[in-house]
């Protein structure tokens, strides 16, 4: 026996092109919507992951020193300020501090990088304390430095890919003409560490001709009062304290405008799709007035006709919504690339996180809005009187 659901499906298949175009509209708006929600979720997750992967929650550096690798690259290392390494001893005394690690950042111009040269960033790290801050580092090959003043480097995954280095290769520090041996290449972490070249702190200090450092990374004890520690650290002379939770808030504020813009686009896309749904279903009802009248002579109640037309809306929105979610999952990488182009700062790893609850929420939203749009055509169909529809023909 044929069911009202099958009748609804056949009705939609009558005007295949119209139905297809409506589905495309719903699919596109779902795609935009789920990608946007996925981005909202994924960006914050990626940012948290980036910050957690720093291994430390606070950084202390000389006042005026750029703390972010990208900024350092832009300024070509010229903005670097230094502080005494003895600062580490003052910081580690604080009861809230669990671990500290001194870091020296250096940036040199490499004429062989890219078409017209580029900046190569080096991280001088303490082999005794830095690896403990990054216990999640896995080596694709090799391992950490053999001693604290070795002429060696450990390369991030992308840095090694870019320079096509393998363990055992020699690499030259530009401007300084110092050769270092590659002893380790890290697995991909999805963070900025992938593009970093790590050198033992003492070696980099020797190459740079300084005994100072640029940064102290601080891991705070669990449940310690972070703001109290920050206040105490500000008492140290000529330093600035960067808390990653502050950095996170700043970055989230920066991308808020982009989020609002994309949300507006998503809302407009949904509205356009829903106008398409109303148009398709209403046209379909108007074209079938006689047929609806005949269904009523056969015993279909106004509620049956209402449900039949509403089922058509439900099918359109469900199929379009599922297709949109499918495409969003399939092309999440493309969305990722596009979003990265317009963002002021993009953390590593996937920026668009679409999971089952999000997919279901989007589907329910699309179907819910669709069913609201289908109310008028369904109501109109339910009110068709058989006699009037038969008279039309006569």
């Amino acid at each position: 026996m044929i069911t009202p659901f099958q009748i609804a499906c056949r009705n939609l298949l009558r005007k295949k092109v119209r139905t297809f175009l409506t589905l495309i509209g719903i699919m596109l708006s779902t795609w935009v919507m789920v990608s946007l929600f996925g981005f909202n979720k994924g960006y914050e997750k990626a940012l948290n992951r980036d910050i957690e992967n720093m291994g430390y929650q606070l950084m202390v550096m000389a006042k005026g020193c750029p703390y972010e690798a990208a900024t350092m690259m832009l300024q070509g290392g010229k903005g670097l300020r230094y502080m005494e390494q003895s600062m580490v001893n003052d910081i580690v005394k604080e009861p809230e501090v669990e671990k500290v690690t001194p870091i020296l950042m250096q940036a040199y111009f490499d004429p062989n990088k890219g078409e017209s040269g580029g900046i190569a960033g080096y991280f001088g790290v303490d082999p005794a304390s830095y690896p403990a801050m990054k216990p999640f580092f896995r080596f694709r090959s090799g391992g950490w430095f053999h001693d604290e003043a070795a002429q060696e480097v450990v390369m991030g995954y992308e840095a090694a890919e870019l320079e096509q280095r393998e363990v055992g290769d020699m690499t030259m520090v530009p401007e300084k003409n110092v050769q270092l041996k590659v002893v380790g290449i890290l697995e991909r972490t999805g963070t900025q560490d992938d593009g970093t070249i790590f050198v033992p702190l003492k070696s980099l200090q020797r190459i740079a001709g300084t005994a100072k450092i640029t940064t102290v990374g601080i891991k705070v004890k669990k449940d310690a009062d972070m703001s109290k520690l920050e206040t105490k650290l500000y008492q140290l002379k000529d330093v600035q304290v960067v808390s990653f939770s502050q950095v996170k808030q700043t970055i989230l504020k920066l991308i808020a405008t982009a989020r609002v813009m994309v949300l507006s686009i998503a809302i407009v896309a949904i509205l356009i799709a829903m106008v398409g749904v109303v148009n398709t279903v209403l046209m379909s009802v108007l074209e079938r007035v006689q047929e609806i009248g005949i269904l009523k002579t056969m015993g279909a109640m106004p509620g049956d006709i209402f449900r039949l037309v509403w089922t058509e809306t439900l099918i359109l929105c469900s199929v379009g919504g599922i297709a949109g979610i499918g495409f969003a999952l399939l092309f999440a990488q493309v969305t990722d690339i596009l979003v990265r182009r317009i963002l002021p700062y993009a953390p590593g790893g996937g920026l668009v996180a679409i999971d089952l609850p999000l997919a279901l929420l989007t589907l329910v939203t699309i179907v819910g809005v669709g069913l609201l749009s289908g109310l008028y055509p369904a109501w109109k169909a339910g009110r068709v009187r058989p006699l009037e529809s038969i008279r039309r023909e006569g």
Partner: protein
Amino acid sequence: MTESGMVLAARELTKVYTRGSEAIRAVDGVSLTIRRGEFVAFMGPSGSGKTTLVNILGCLDNPTGGELDLAGRSIFGGGKSLGERDLTRVRRELFGYIFQNFYLIHTLTVRENVALPLAFYRKPGAEEEVERLLKLLGMEHRMDHLPGQISGGEMQRVAIARALVNRPEILLADEPTGNLDTRRSEEIGEILQELNRNAGLTIIMVSHNPDLARLGGRRIEMRDGQAYES
């Protein structure tokens, strides 16, 4: 069904339309009774009110005045008129309809068209009627065809099967052969006559075709909204 076998009783049925300031009495005080198993043909010139009367008898329209009882139930009377929901309820329990234009759904097969009423309302055992009726009407070889693949006469047979699938008390046929050639018209006429004779189905038919009307055991001539037995 009443004890006397009366399936329809109409008393002083009236339908008045207003066009501007003019009142048109399309049905003017018609009283008649129809017994179970009768084949009643309504004839008359265009505008005589036959279709309007049959629409009221078939609960497709409300009268302006008068009373109508169907199968012992009062449907209209005492100024009462039914809403669309109540009219549908009466229609699906008592009537099957066939029309001049067949009104088959072109995206459904013959079998699905016949089964269509069951998607909304089904009397017990109605499912078995689909194939039985299509066989009875000689359409078993066309069950999986679409309406576009069969002839006009076959389409009307499918429409008859669809009208009968819920085992109605009364079959209401409005110009059932209006779109068919002479040979197909005769075929449909024979089918209606057989359904009336063999299955005891009550048939109310509107037709311009005198040959078809002659098949009815009883003919009613409509003139100016009034009914005359002939």
